[in-house]
């Protein structure tokens, strides 16, 4: 699915700071949990959000706390959509090498995008490469359950 530039209903802007990123991640995960997503689904969303936020901070904003990260989201019982935008120059995701190749296994970095692709139903970047869209479909999660009513 290509990157959809239409705005999502909710957004928050934070300083490029890992503790601030961690706080917003926790807030969003509480919403996801409240919607009754399974543990496996919540793990996948947590991992993907974490990778997107760390990439925005480290690679996009170069760890500059004067820059911002914008997180927008649309969460309901069917799917979770997030977008994470940084203030960097962007990059070309296709140029990131496969970290699962034998000669790259011992490298400590370079797994974030691969993990997002593995745990999400869809991952897309805007043309500039400084905003990533994460989509997790609830139906794709095993051991799905609905909260008791």
């Amino acid at each position: 699915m290509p990157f959809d530039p239409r705005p999502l209903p909710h957004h928050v802007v934070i300083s490029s700071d890992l503790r601030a990123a961690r706080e917003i991640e926790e807030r969003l995960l509480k919403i996801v949990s409240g919607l009754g997503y399974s543990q496996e689904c919540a793990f996948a969303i947590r991992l993907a959000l974490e990778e997107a936020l760390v990439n925005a901070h480290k690679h996009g904003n170069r760890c500059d706390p004067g820059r911002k990260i914008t997180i927008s989201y649309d969460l309901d019982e069917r799917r979770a959509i997030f977008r994470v935008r940084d203030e960097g120059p962007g990059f070309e995701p296709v140029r990131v090498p496969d970290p699962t190749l034998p000669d790259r296994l011992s490298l400590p970095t370079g797994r974030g995008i691969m993990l997002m692709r593995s745990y999400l139903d869809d991952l897309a970047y805007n043309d500039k490469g400084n905003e990533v869209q994460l989509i997790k479909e609830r139906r794709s999660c095993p051991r799905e359950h609905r909260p008791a009513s």
Partner: protein
Amino acid sequence: MSSRTSTGVLKIEVEQRGGATIARLIGSANMVSANHLQEQLLSLVEGRPQRLVLDLSGLDFISSVGLGGIIAAHVRCRHHGGSIVLAAPTPEILALLQVTNLTRLFPVRDSVDAALADLTH
């Protein structure tokens, strides 16, 4: 011998047992705590253990940054002639190790006892 260090979300308990150094990771190795994990593991590796067992039974989350910390310790450990074994990962963490192909880099055992048993064979 045992020691314990922690951040708000990740605690690391270290003991010597069965000829190995065992580090039990408890909590989450996330974007905030992963640096602490790497620092502690590299510090342990500087003691040049022949076998470092990471007990993952209490680890509920790890991101790529946390994995990077374990890999950095692995590289340093091998440089000193030692090795790292991963023990008792939760199903979610085991799946993460498999999808990243890191099960080809690290031996993974069902329990700490199984990891220690390797030492005697």
